């Protein structure tokens, strides 16, 4: 499977739109087009194989299910994962003759996607650094009272940063994809240590994504019980994800009511029997 120049150029454009900080804005860009599952659909459509695209995108999505960027630090770059990693994974899986839906296929995709994503953080820092130039122009515009230039600084000039740090790398790397697969085939046999390790890493990595998420909501081991509740629902009781969302929603409503009652009792004891209405509390 080859990636044509036209396909590579389309991937390059999507890379510009989807990155953080991207030209699509965060809502449509980073949080929609940048999600590997959505990118799987986009790449699948462009490569003419939606099914494989979705399977690969979904597998990689689990690793990055909660990609938080606190204070503008990134541990992985979505444009690289989504529009370099997914096309490469597709080419590799097809080139090596793997079944995308098999554990080996998804393992390959996840390992490749994550490696590209981690290396891709270079692109994030590159974009942010070039943007400093445009911001410098912006400060001079504010000084001189040429306010209209601010729009160009915020929304037009950063395209140049993305041409250098998103478009070109994506086009060049995806074009080289099929050559890379040939090299892997010739030098790294499937039953060798290197490939076995690669596939195993691919199956282990999604645990990191879930771990990152758990870190935010669980600070002590007993907090993990909620997580295991959901885990057991799916692993032992065979509940699917929509079912788990409904059951979780039910418990969330109960928790909300308990908390509101607690706040009320706290107010009652604090103010000697006077009960405040909820709406009044908001205006304090």
């Amino acid at each position, binding site marked *: 499977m080859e990636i044509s120049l036209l396909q590579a150029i389309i991937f390059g454009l999507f890379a510009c739109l989807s990155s953080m900080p991207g030209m699509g804005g965060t809502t449509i860009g980073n949080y929609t087009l940048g999600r590997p599952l959505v990118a799987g659909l986009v790449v699948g459509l462009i490569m003419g194989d939606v099914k494989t695209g979705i399977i690969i995108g979904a597998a990689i999505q689990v690793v990055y299910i909660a990609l938080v960027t606190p204070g503008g630090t990134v541990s992985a770059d979505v444009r690289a994962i989504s529009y370099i990693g997914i096309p490469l994974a597709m080419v590799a899986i097809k080139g090596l003759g793997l079944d995308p839906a098999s554990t080996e296929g998804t393992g390959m995709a996840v390992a490749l996607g994550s490696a590209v994503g981690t290396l891709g953080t270079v692109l994030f820092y590159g974009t942010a650094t070039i943007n400093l130039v445009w911001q410098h122009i912006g400060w001079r515009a504010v000084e001189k009272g040429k306010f209209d230039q601010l729009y160009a600084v915020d929304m037009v000039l950063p395209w140049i940063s993305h041409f250098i740090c998103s478009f070109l790398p994506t086009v060049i790397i995806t074009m080289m994809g099929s050559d890379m697969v040939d090299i892997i085939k010739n030098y790294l046999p499937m039953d060798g240590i290197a490939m076995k390790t690669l596939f195993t*890493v691919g199956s282990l990595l999604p645990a990191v994504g*879930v771990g990152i998420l758990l870190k935010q*909501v669980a600070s002590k081991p007993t907090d993990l019980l909620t997580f295991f509740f959901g885990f057991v629902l799916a692993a032992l009781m065979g509940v699917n994800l929509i079912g788990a969302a409904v059951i979780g929603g039910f418990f969330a409503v109960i928790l909300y009511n308990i908390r509101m009652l607690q706040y009320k009792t706290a107010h009652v004891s604090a103010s000697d029997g006077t009960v405040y209405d909820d709406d009044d509390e908001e205006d304090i």
Partner: protein
Amino acid sequence: MAEKKISKKTLAKSFRNWYYGHLTCFSQEHMQTFGYLCSMLPIIRELYDTPEEQQEALQTYTAFFNTEPQLGTVIVGVTAGLEEAKANGEAIDGEMINGIRAGLMGPVAGIGDSLVVGTLIPILLGIALGLSGGGSPLGAIFYIVVWNLVVTLGMRFLYYKGYELGGKAVEIIVGEKANAIREAVVMLGTIVIGAVAASWINITTSFKMLNADGGTIIDLQSTLDGICPKLLSAATVILCWWLMSKKKISPTIVMLILVVIAFVGVLLGFFDPGLSY
């Protein structure tokens, strides 16, 4: 002097500029500052007549700004309301607006990261993954539609609510009711993530103990499945959580640790994908 009021059209333009442009010109030095400037510019132009006044008002928003952009829309709305009050001669100055802005951006970033990125997105993606079985595009389409709808309407609501309430909007996002809702939503998210982990992480071992005739004495995987299905997956998640949460190791290093574990495991015959060209 007639009371100044920001027109609907200008408010819409200000919201649009923030909705799209809050992070387009990002640098480590001034993250969302230019997005904020572009959002306030239409308002300042309408409220102040002379270029000197405009420049002075705009100066307020040249200070560093960064928060969670979706929930942070409320801050932009609040400052729009405050700026209007300031133009009408109320006892508000640029320094005060900046104080409110700087005071809010930290807490809102914390709440937004845990609520939007840490809970809403994982829940939607979790459901979308469930709909993607067998390579169906349904899940991706579900996520695109629901996420954009919820967030666009939500941001619009936050912006106009913030504008309407001005400084009082702070209570909405840090009040008790908001706290209870946040805890409940986080709980829902954690349960869904548990189900995502069980459905999508698939770690198995190939370790077997054989007797002299080649018969199996212990098949570790089926033994583990007898205790609890997906036990290795759960154990690996907990290991990652423990490394990051208790040992303060960064995600990238944790990934490298897993590479080492995989390598050693393959050498010992614990992991074997069992594949050939």
